[in-house]
């Protein structure tokens, strides 16, 4: 793969900005860890050796209790199985994940009422929520959903924003004028309210919510794309491509887009943050993804309703602040790395 020297220079520059670079590494590690959350936060065992057979229950179909000699045919309770194996010592072996809970199950303690405070003994390292679900598990799975949601939202709104903006700048004239007016009208619709109204009538799914949000968030990008394209379209290389007989589509995608992409990349981290915030606020208000989807917004809402259980609010707020700070550090560094001026003089 040939890397454009300009791009290489920018990457070097980005790497030299330590705060942004380490934020990117940390964020990357977090996303990676969350993508494989099943391996370290799960109620299914990683490995079971039962009567000489080896089972890897993490991914794949559920194993009924009867597989391991239990008398029920629903999903095996691996925590109970682990206890049993520990007592019986009959050569069986079980390896549980670090945090042996999934984000949906309710773990209740006899004689106590949820939420339970953080406790290393119960392996609820951040405690549980008001229906006895592990907060750490819900944070991690909630993060995975939020980040994937945000990326998917970004993909749609960027595709729409970039193509429409480029077309406006490229063709100009009446098309530009009319589309501008349409975008102005659309921008004045309060998107979040519309989504809340819709969500109170029909329960949204992951995809429909992302599409709805995208419908109200693609407009901002068109302005930047339009001005950039306007500028590029009058350059000699575009005229040259024209005279060589290149089609409009080819000129836009092969010539103009690579030269405008720099400005768009600087927006990218902030758009990710905006996507996470939008999903979290909708969940907080109860108009987001349906229960029992793990969600930071729902945790925040539980926390503010029950301020006396500080661990709920504390976990959610810390997690949210951490991610938003990291994203902002990254964004800041990207912006600086892409800035054509290495030095700025103030007079």
């Amino acid at each position, binding site marked *: 793969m040939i890397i454009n020297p300009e791009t290489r220079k920018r990457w070097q520059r980005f790497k030299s900005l330590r705060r942004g670079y380490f934020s990117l590494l940390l964020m990357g590690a977090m996303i990676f860890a969350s993508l494989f959350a099943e391996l370290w936060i799960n109620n299914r065992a990683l490995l079971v050796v039962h009567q000489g057979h080896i089972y890897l229950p993490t991914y794949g*179909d559920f194993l009924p209790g009867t597989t391991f000699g239990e008398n029920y045919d629903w999903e095996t309770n691996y925590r109970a199985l682990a206890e049993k194996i520990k007592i019986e010592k009959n050569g069986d072996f079980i390896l549980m994940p670090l945090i042996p809970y999934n984000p949906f199950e309710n773990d209740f303690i006899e004689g106590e*009422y949820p939420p339970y405070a953080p406790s290393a003994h119960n392996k609820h390292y951040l405690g549980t929520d008001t229906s006895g679900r592990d907060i750490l598990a819900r944070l991690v799975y909630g993060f995975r959903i939020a980040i994937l949601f945000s990326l998917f939202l970004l993909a749609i709104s960027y595709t729409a924003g970039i193509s429409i903006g480029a077309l406006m700048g490229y063709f100009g004239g009446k098309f530009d004028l009319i589309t501008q007016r349409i975008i102005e009208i659309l921008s004045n619709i309060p998107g979040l309210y519309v989504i809340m109204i819709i969500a109170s009538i029909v329960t949204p799914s992951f995809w429909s919510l992302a599409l709805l949000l995208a419908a109200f968030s693609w407009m901002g990008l068109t302005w930047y794309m339009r001005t950039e394209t306007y500028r590029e379209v009058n350059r000699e290389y575009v005229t040259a491509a024209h005279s060589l007989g290149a089609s409009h589509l080819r000129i836009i995608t092969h010539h103009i887009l690579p030269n405008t992409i720099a400005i768009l990349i600087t927006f990218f981290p902030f758009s990710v943050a905006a996507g996470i915030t939008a999903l979290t606020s909708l969940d907080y208000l*109860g108009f987001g993804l349906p*229960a029992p989807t793990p969600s930071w917004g729902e945790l925040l809402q539980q926390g503010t309703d*029950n301020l006396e259980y500080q661990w709920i609010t504390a976990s959610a707020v810390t997690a949210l602040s951490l991610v938003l700070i990291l994203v902002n550090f990254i964004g800041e560094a990207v912006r600086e790395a892409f800035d054509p001026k290495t030095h700025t003089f103030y007079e």
Partner: protein
Amino acid sequence: MRYIGLLLLVISSLVNAAALPKNLKWESNNSAPLWASPAAEKGGTFTDFILSFPPTLRVVGPDSNSSFRGFINANQLSLTSFHPNTLEILPELATEWAYGKDNKTVYYHLDKNARWSDGVPVTADDYLFTMTFMRSKFINAPWYNNYYTEQIVNVTKYDDYTISVTGAVARPKEELHYYYGLQPTPKHFHTLDDNWVKNYNWKIEPNTGPYQITDVKNGKEIIFERKENWWAKDNRYFKNRFNVDRVVIKVIRDMNIAYKYFEKGEIDTFNMLQPDLWHDKAKGRLYDSGYIEKFVFYNDAPRSSSGFFLNMNDPTLADQNVRSALAYALNFDKVTQTVLRNDYERLEQFHSGYGEYSNPDIKPKPFDLNLANQLLDTAGWTTRNGEGIREKNGKPLTLTITYGNKEHTDRLVVLRQDARKAGIDIELQLLDPSAQYKTIMQKQHQIAMLGWSTGFRPDYWQHFHSANAHKPQTNNVTNTDDKEMDKMISDYDTETSREKRIALAHQLEQKIMVMGAFIPSWKTTYTRGAHWRWIHLPDVPGTKTGDSLYSVFGDGLLWIDKKDKIDTMAARKNQGSKNPVTKVFEQYKVK
């Protein structure tokens, strides 16, 4: 024009001068046990709150169904009332009553002392006017228009202080009072025309009860004051009640903020049915030093028919085995013992707490995964997919519960986890309450989680008769369509013998349970709350059927010790010397 009016008046008075049937057996009740405390003192200001300012002061017409209407209605007396403990009939605006032979009509002698709050006497014409008023298209209230045409069919005036009220169907005696009871409407106050709704939005209607609104501070508060010379203040059943001089109803738009007002002593009492309020928020110094006292009072009243309503038009739920399996797969007890902190109990049947009308032999289906699994195997949902959800012809057993209160999510997620063990996948659909109501009324739900408000007697027709099945905007949300059920319901509705009716009610409850389209959830069997110690209540602080200890208007049992209030307010910053008070009253606890 004036002559025509006069002529009409003469004719109408001729028509109205009907003759009272002979041999009427007049009854009254002046010896029922009293329930107020003779120790009660008059005076003081009582402050309560509502969550939003009422959109109007009218009690009928558009936007009138707000929570504030309860305060206004509580100050409008009826012809008769029910004893809150013994359910005997007590005189209110009528002194005596008699029953017609048709089992549809009740005759009343009106109290000649009764006065509207503006001093005008309450006469038979005000009752006739109620009919004109409630039937009028100007009030823009179709439900009332219909009820006062279809249910209450006639009011007859015999003289200024004698009337009769006739209902549409024959009923047992006590039900005649309940269903065909009437409140007078001040004829001299209302002008019915096209502008009635607008003109009467903020007018204070004269009333017959102990308090009247004296000040409305828009968006902030509404003030009631006790009538100095209330016409009924010496009546046997009103003595020692309605003790507070002024009642301030503040608008506080958030429950948590309202609770802070209470802790500051700016609100006198606080109802605390919610588990988190009672267990977590209501503790600390103010409680430990006895400044605020906590009361639990068990009552014995009809319980709301709450639970899951399974739409039998849905192909999956049309199978009785699936419905029963679902009932066995829902672990209500686990929710009760954890999320609900043992504060709630399992509801037994559709009509629980209706005294003899409830069937004592019915118990709800317990949590039993083996039975659930067997039933689903029988129903043909035999294979399980990779997630452990049962399948039939490649379709997973996924059921959607539609609900409208986000407080219920905690309960549902626990139920959902255990149902998965039976191979049932439950999806939760939380909608805005009005959207949920709309969905359910359109019968577009699969399973609806809701509770119906209670009535005086069990009512099956609206919920289970086939006349209301398979069409929108009716309360038969399970789409129950069963010939045998229809017959039993019409027998129940037309039966006037109490014993036979009770027997029919028991059979109907049994049938509802067998059919399994209604899965009962929870009930509360008490009311509870906390109050500052200057609030005093009788030794038995509530009534058998009461749903709040702190109603200043309805029961009106509490009184304020003004000296104690001054002392407490001065001392509340310091550590008190008293002990914490939590009193539990089990007089009316249902065993």
